[in-house]
Structure formats: structure tokens, C-alpha cells
């Protein structure tokens, strides 16, 4: 079974590894590049735990064929922090108790970051829409919504 070389930009750094034929981007990121922040929740595109951005748009990495990400700019939750400085959303999730088991959290943060990047001051309804593709079984969503809104509010008032 021939392996396929895939080169892409991963959280700002060019990386290369081999993919199996038919391998999805989630598995490629985890096994190939060792970025374990995107999670396997369903492999069906129904939970959002594997959410990453490709060229700035959120994607379900379990539904992306790894080789089709070649040459593209892939970002994951592992790339949210700038060095030792956490993204304000990460701080807000900690402050608002917006994670319990933590399994949906990386994907949720990627979706939230994508929202704020294009709409720095979203309404509650827009936040709800932005995370609607990311399931959480623990929190009942409200703390997550509040955490995201708090960052939007901070920016608005800053």
C-alpha cells in the first residue's frame, strides 16, 4: 500500500509526513504530525471534536482526505496560544468553567476563534450558530457561550 507524501502548513510551520491512501486529515494530524489536539468523536462529521481551520475556514478534519490538505494552511487548537501566551478565548474558557471532560474543548475553541476572527463582536445568536457544529455532552453549552461572549465583550470595550 503506497504511502502518500503530504506537505502542509501546520500552525504556521511547514510540515511533511506520509499519509495512507484514504486517510483523513484528523488521523494525519494526530499520527502523522503528532498534533493530538483535534479529537476523534465520530468520524461521521456530526460532533465537531476534530474541528480545524483550513485556509481560515473551519473544517471537520475527519471528513477531509489528508492528501487534499496538501499545500494548505491548517490550524488546530494546539496553535491557538502564541508561545506561552494563551489566546484570550483559552483564558475565558478557564475562567468561565467552560470545560469539564475537555474532549470537545479544542474543537470548540477552533470554532470560536474562527467566529471572532471574522466577527469580533458577535451576538449571542451568532455565537450559538458558530458552535452549533460542535457538540458538548458535559456543560449544557451555557458556560461556553458565556466564555465566548466575554471575549467579544472585552474586545468591544477595549
Amino acid at each position, binding site marked *: 500500500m503506497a504511502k502518500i507524501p503530504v506537505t502542509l502548513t501546520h500552525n504556521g510551520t511547514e510540515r511533511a509526513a506520509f499519509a495512507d491512501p484514504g486517510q483523513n486529515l484528523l488521523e494525519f494530524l494526530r499520527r502523522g504530525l503528532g498534533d493530538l489536539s483535534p479529537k476523534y468523536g465520530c468520524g461521521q462529521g456530526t460532533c465537531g471534536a476534530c474541528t480545524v481551520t483550513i485556509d481560515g475556514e473551519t473544517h*471537520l478534519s475527519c471528513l*477531509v482526505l489528508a*492528501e487534499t490538505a496538501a499545500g494548505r494552511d491548517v490550524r488546530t487548537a494546539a496553535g491557538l496560544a502564541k508561545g506561552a501566551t494563551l489566546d484570550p478565548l483559552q483564558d475565558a474558557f478557564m475562567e468561565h468553567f467552560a470545560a469539564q471532560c475537555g474532549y470537545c474543548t479544542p474543537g470548540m475553541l477552533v*470554532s470560536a476563534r*474562527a467566529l471572532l476572527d471574522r466577527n469580533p463582536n458577535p451576538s449571542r445568536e451568532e455565537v450559538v450558530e458558530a458552535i452549533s457544529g460542535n457538540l458538548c455532552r458535559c456543560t449544557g453549552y451555557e458556560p461556553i457561550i458565556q466564555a465566548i461572549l466575554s471575549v467579544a465583550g472585552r474586545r468591544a470595550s477595549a
Partner: protein
Amino acid sequence: MTQVETYSTLDEAARAVGQGADYLAGGTVVMREVNAGRAAARLVRTVDPALRTITARGDTITLGAGVTLAQVLADPQLDFLHPVARVIGGPQVRNMGTVGGNLFAAHPYGDFAVALLALGARIQMAGSGGVRPVEDVLRDRAHPSGLVAGIEVPRPRPGSFGFSKVSRVKPKGVSILSIAVLAPHEGGPMRGVRVAYGAMGPGPLRSAAVERVLEGQRLDAATRERAAAVAAEGLQPPTDALASDWYRKEVAGVHLRRLLERMEHA
């Protein structure tokens, strides 16, 4: 194991797709099957940028088959399709899923195709496949004859098109049913009415009964009630985890009437 063939043009891909291969577009349908080990051994895809273009000519807007639902939402000239695109999948699915792929998404998916069916869209096939009515493509979708290149969507007159999708989960849930209504009128009786349902049969389908009731009538309360009364006539909706055939039939008329009310007051 899955082998992927990538072509630079759609025509090449169309020639290659042939027997025993699946066409990989946005991935939301096919990659799930790949992950489950149920996809064809060969996947064919293309990187033709023409597939992602949106062009308007007169009152017809042509969507490349690879246009994503997010692209639809971002395009002001497609405002009449925004209420449709907005309720399909979550943001990630809309960033990936394509209008071409939606034509082939099995129950309970394919709500965008329901809207295209009501709008009387025409499907441009790859190569020498010509242009086909959306009905034909939907009818043959289990055994498609060729690849879709683009979708010609006639722009409806303001206020003449309405769409409704009923879900158990908000804001992102799959269809209990969806309804699209094209009801052109010049301030008078409706002419050329097209009514389409999703999740009320094996795939998107038109309701001849409702169209008969609406055609040539004004959209008043009495007409709405008559339309609601025949809303499920002749239909055999599926039973699934979310709703039984009984429930779908019972509420189709309610949701149709509510949609027609909104359209009248729009």
C-alpha cells in the same frame, strides 16, 4: 483500500469516474463512507477552480457544482438562498459541503436540493452531458449518469420563494421535513407554482397535489387551508429515528400553511 485519483479538469474526472468509483467533492458524504469502510475502492476528484465560481447572467445565476454552502451564504446576489443554506449542517459542514454534492445526499439530508427543485434549477452536466432539469438528476441520483458541472438557478421574484426546515435540534439539526415553495404572482393569482419537500419520500420531491391547489389562486387563508389539507397527499414519507411516517404526514400541512402565511406577509 481507498485509492484517490485527482484530475485537473472536471471533464477528465467525468471520464475517469465510470464504474465502481465515487466522486469526492466536499467530503461530507463520501468521506464518512470512507471512514466507515463503505466507500468505493476508487475515489475521483478534481481541483478545477471553475467548479467554485458563481456567475450571474440576467435572471439566472449559475453555481459551480463545487460552490460551498458557505459561499452561497456569503454572496449577496444569492440572498434568496440564504435561509436555505443557513440551516444546512453546522458552520464546518457549510464550509465543506457543496451545492453539487447536496443533490446526491440521501435522506434526511439534501435540503438545498429541495430548494433547487422548487426553483426549477437546471443542471449542467460535465462533458457532453448537456443541461438537465433538476427533477431528472434527482430521480436518477442512485445511478447518476455523469458528473454535475454547475447549477443554473433562476432568480425568483422577490416574495415569491419561501423555505422552511423543521428540526428537533436548534440551530443545527437534520430534517423532520423541509418545504420549498415557488409561488410567482404579479399581485394576482399564482402562476407556475412549484412546491418541493425534503424528508417526505426517498428524496426531494414535488407535491402535485399542493401545486394543483395553489395554481391560479391567490395566497389567501382559504387557499392556504386547502393546500394544507392535501399537503401529504400521495406521499409515503420515511420513518426514521427522529419521526415516524405518521408524524411527517400529520405535520406537513401545518408547516406548509405556516410557510405560506409567512410568504404572504413577507
